[in-house]
């Protein structure tokens, strides 16, 4: 207990190491999820290649080597952990929400607005990711044509004959929301740990995010093309 003797008397409440672990966990889960998301988008992007042949091969690979069976629950776990850790940082009580909102409006500061966006996208991701996961799990395995038909789903027709392709809209929004949260989330983590100059790093991350979003948008377009090519759902490649 030699060291404990040296510890100064402080008026601080003592926290032990919990706060450190929580902070590390938030950053680490964040980085893992950004990695996951970017990888995921690259995988989805393989739809470009050979009209989805590589896409299917990857999907089969994930299945065959049990990567999906382990990976999906693990990712879900990391997401839950991240929600739990990062959520504590967000204003939770109504009173705090109001203060945060008013302050953001008053100081009108770029990074603070970006963070407000992060809080909002976090909520949306919580909802969207559950829906996405549900869709994937109930239609397992992942196949290019199956996915393509889902994206190209014409949707419910309104009375004017006008229809809303809800899956396409869902994926488009999910893409934007997810990448926003990932890009700025990573920015925030790096700002906090201070390894890079913040403004340059911001531009690099914005660049990466735009590229990923382009891949995503392109992939959505490719899916609609694949769906046209194979008009019968479940049709072999």
């Amino acid at each position: 207990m030699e060291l404990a003797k040296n510890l100064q008397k402080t008026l601080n409440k003592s926290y032990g190491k919990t706060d450190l672990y929580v902070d590390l966990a938030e950053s680490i889960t964040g980085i893992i999820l950004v990695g996951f998301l970017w990888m995921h988008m690259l995988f989805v992007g393989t739809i470009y290649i050979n009209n989805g042949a590589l896409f299917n091969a990857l999907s089969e690979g994930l299945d065959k080597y049990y990567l999906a069976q382990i990976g999906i629950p693990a990712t879900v776990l990391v997401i839950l952990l991240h929600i739990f850790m990062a959520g504590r940082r967000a204003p939770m009580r109504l009173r705090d929400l109001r203060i945060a909102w008013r302050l953001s409006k008053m100081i009108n500061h770029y990074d603070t607005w970006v963070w407000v966006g992060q809080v909002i996208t976090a909520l949306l991701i919580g909802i969207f990711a559950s829906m996405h996961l549900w869709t994937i799990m109930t239609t397992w395995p992942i196949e290019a044509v199956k996915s393509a038909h889902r994206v190209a789903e014409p949707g419910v027709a309104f009375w004017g004959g006008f229809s809303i392709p809800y899956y396409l809209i869902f994926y488009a929004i999910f893409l934007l929301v997810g990448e926003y949260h990932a890009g700025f989330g990573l920015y925030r983590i790096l700002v906090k740990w201070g390894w890079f100059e913040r403004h340059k790093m911001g531009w690099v991350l914005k660049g990466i995010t735009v590229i990923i979003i382009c891949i995503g948008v392109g992939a959505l377009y490719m899916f609609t093309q694949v769906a046209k090519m194979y008009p019968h759902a479940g049709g072999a490649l």
Partner: protein
Amino acid sequence: MARQLTFSIFRYNPNKPGDKPRMQEYSFEEFEGLTMFVALNKIREEMDPTLMFDFVCRAAICGSCAMMINGRPRLACKTMTINLPSRITVMPLPVFKLIGDLSVDTGTWFRNLQVKTESWIHTNKKFDPNALEVRMENKIAEQIYEPERCVECGCCVATCVTANIREDFIGATGINRVSRFMMDPRDERSDAEYYEVVGNEDGAFGCVGLMACADLCPMEIPLQTQLAYARRKMAAAGLKLQFAGVKIS
């Protein structure tokens, strides 16, 4: 032609029975070199002698006159009206206790901070009046001077979402202050001791990274660097202590 300026100023005197918070407007014609220091004094001396605000050095050295000018925390003394629109809204800093109108009690807040973070040199060496000073590299002295430049105006605290919603958070100024001592070879505190002070959510791990503090610091102290330095240092200390099997209270 000179602009007509309108100052919309927050008014409330907690010591006056029945007084209610309100915004009050004053206007006059702008003139060359007009600062918020000159403007507020003009209002007090010529229009409304009850208006409360704080100025001391009027040279952006003492940190007394921080207030929210058009939503941003600024040192009023160095804020030129020429850089503002003709309608200027002035509010007291949030977080700090209101004394009256634009005057807030930063003194008590910062005093508590110094005591809470034990912001002074901790050493067991006894000062020997006959000895030479302990040598130090000039570079280190310059590095210490950088965070030491903080004037404790409270702008970083006022713009920090975390400080606004969590009373115990010591803000960028507090973390910067402690990191100044971490950089100082004369302070003999161990990592474990610093960890005890700022290795928690009220200190280094509490920052969410919104950087309004760094962007709006009137002294342009590199707060992101200081905050990240403290966070890394505290994380390393915490992990090292963990592996060394040391329990922190």
